[in-house]
């Protein structure tokens, strides 16, 4: 990619992020439920705060200012790298994110690995032998994987692997072994989607004339499949893997609750329920950045996989 292309790209990213932050701020703002009331309720161990308490809290946190003033104040600080403090705990939002990010990244990477380790061989095997038993088994497997709710599979794995077989701990985030069950739970759902896509994409490619040509040339089937077909079949798969990131973040909320792993998903959901604006904004911004970067990475991978795909800049 050229320098100009990169600049254009960065500018688009900045605009997207600005839009995301404005939109979330706006949405949280118009959602019924006063942050002062919800946060004081939490601070008081679930009891309803008095009107005086609410008024004092609103004044202390500048919640009586108009929307645009509050947003501008937040944005001004954010641009200087200060994401503010949680209304509830008074901890710095950046600290909270930094503390939870490793858990989320760990889960995302591990479950994506699980997904790929299951999905690629399964998809390739089905596509190479369409209509065979392997194909049917893989397809039924993916159907089950797609249909099974995360939390249900999570409990099932806990009961089998932790309670019955005593292999792994039930829940927690103390070390790598705590990652096994959550990543299996989340990964198997993704594996199902990816395997089906690998199968379709492979079947398409295996039908192409150049594959027929290679086959008639007497090329060994393995080389044909892995070297010639797979690489071309991967373009749509990479896109989906990028999009599956949203699945990881969605799924993470459930997984984080079931497996007691403090991560970004629960941080965001809890903050939304508590109307803890600074936390909501900080996490949304981060997720926005991650999405934009992942999409960028996906685009870069395209051009590696298929040099015909050009990412802007000077078109020839």
């Amino acid at each position: 990619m050229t320098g100009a292309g990169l600049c254009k790209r960065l500018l688009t990213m900045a605009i997207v992020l600005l839009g995301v932050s404005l939109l979330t701020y706006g949405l949280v703002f118009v959602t019924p439920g006063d942050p002062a009331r919800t946060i004081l309720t939490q601070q008081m161990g679930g009891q309803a705060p008095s009107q005086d308490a609410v008024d004092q809290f609103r004044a202390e946190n500048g919640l009586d200012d108009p929307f645009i003033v509050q947003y501008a104040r937040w944005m001004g600080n954010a641009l200087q790298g200060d994401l503010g403090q949680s209304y509830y705990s008074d901890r710095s939002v950046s600290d909270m994110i930094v503390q939870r990010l490793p858990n989320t990244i760990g889960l995302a990477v591990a479950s994506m690995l699980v997904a790929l380790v299951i999905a690629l061989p399964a998809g390739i095997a089905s596509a190479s032998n369409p209509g065979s038993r392997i194909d049917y088994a893989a397809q039924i497997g993916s159907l089950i994987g797609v249909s099974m709710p995360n939390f249900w599979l999570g409990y099932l794995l806990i009961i089998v692997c932790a309670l019955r077989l005593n292999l792994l701990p039930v829940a927690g985030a103390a070390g790598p072994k705590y990652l096994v069950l959550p990543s299996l739970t989340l990964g198997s759902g993704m594996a199902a989607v990816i395997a089906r896509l690998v199968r379709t994409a492979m079947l398409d490619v295996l039908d192409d004339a150049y594959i027929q040509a290679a086959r008639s040339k007497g090329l060994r089937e393995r080389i044909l499949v892995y070297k010639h077909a797979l690489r071309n079949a991967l373009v749509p798969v990479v896109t989906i893997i990028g999009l599956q990131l949203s699945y990881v973040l969605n799924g993470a909320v459930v997984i984080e609750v079931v497996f007691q792993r403090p991560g970004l998903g629960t941080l965001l959901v809890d903050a939304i329920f508590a109307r803890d604006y600074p936390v909501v904004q900080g996490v949304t911004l981060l997720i926005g950045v991650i999405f934009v970067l992942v999409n960028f990475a996906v685009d870069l991978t395209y051009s590696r996989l298929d040099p015909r795909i050009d990412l802007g800049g000077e078109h020839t």
Partner: protein
Amino acid sequence: MYKFTRRQTLFAAAAGISGLSGYWLQSGESVDDDTFRVGSPWTPDAIDPVANGWLWRRLNVLEPLLTVDYDATVSPGLATDWHMVNDRTWEFTLREGVTFHDGTEVTAETVLPSLTRAFESSSMAAVPVESVEAAADRTIIIQTTVPFSPLPAHCTRGITCPVSPSAIANDGSITEPIGTGPFQFENWEPSSTITTTATPDYHGSTAHIETLIYEGITDDQTRRLKLENGELDMARILPNKAADTLASSPDLTAHTYKIPRARYLVFDLDSAPFADRKVRRAVMYAIDRDHIVDSLLNGLGSKAIGPFPADVTEWAAELEPYEYSPDKARRLLTEAGWEPDGDTRTRDGDTLSVSIWTYNTRPLLPTIAEVIQTQLQAVGFDVDISVMESSTIKEQATNGEFDTVLWSSSVLWYPDPDRLSDLVHSETATMFSGYESEAVDRHLEAARRTADRDERFERYAAVQRRMQRDLPLGWLTYYANVIGTRADVEGYQPHPIESCYHLEEVTQRR
């Protein structure tokens, strides 16, 4: 070459994962004999007592001036004596020979910063404290702006627990929860765990447990599974259904006990049809609360007559119950002008249709709403249910019209019946029924002005009787908590208002 690299990477990754997982699987959790693990739904998110002092209080890391005894009355804490000097002045005498976990002596001077901080916070805005002073080495004087006899009860709240002056940074923030309790703070993993150890030179009897680990586990099934798997020694607030499962396991014990938390209907007194007291009474007669307790609560909890459960607190007045009687309900509706018309009832062309708002962060509320729906339909109401977020309900019900809200809250979270002001005082109530009664306001205000227990009891009883008659709130059921422990846990005594778990009294034979 390219394909080999990719395949090799894949193989290496697979081999790596299986190798590592083999290692992780082998390295089983070593059971530490002296560590006690307790799991609760609330994740630890702050150190500051202003934000969640109630949690540090529950773990008994922090101690307040006054505590709550097992009979839900105010008892000595860091203060051994307290009394009203005049109607706006209270004097507290601090216990002798108490030190903070960092060695600082507990004196009027050293607890003052914490107290001032607490009373200035938003959460305490409803407590009219004017000033806190250190009058002598161990004497604290608290002045209120108006006569306020519930003050001692508020001094039991976690938010008021003193921390050592060394834990308060220059900007006023709290750096570490250095308190005076039988457990002292060791470290914490925000939103996950708190580790504490027994305070060696505690001023009371030292804890039997050496290390206490608190885990915040939102999901109740996960809490139960961790208890079953031996990852927790105590799992708090389990679903009612779990009580039987726990009791049937030889490794586990279930503790079930009633708490002063109630489920109730809040009626909108400013809009039809519930502006009419007869219609509210009809609802109360139409609801079969025994059925709710037996079928939905697994027999745990009990039906509520008034705001306070008589077997938990002495502040419950004797009240005339609304016994289940669909016939009485029908008669009242007819008297109110709602005539039967097919399956429902109408008056001047309007159908008797109401909507029940409730929320699902407290388990069972939506299910209970459905049972109430069926029971009200049986006497001629047309009922629909909306499940919303509790903060949305609060906002919409406070600012606009509604019919009725199925709500749940503690009725005695600080041990004083002044809690009733929160429910029914025409100006300061946080409940949104719109109830206005001069007599009730007068009693509530007068009860705040006197420290005489008998007079206060009479006044609060009068308020409860009026509430029962006027029905701004319709009491349904009280809660019971289900706590699961490993069978080898001994000495645990559930606390009625759960202001403290008192795990220092627990022993574990291994």
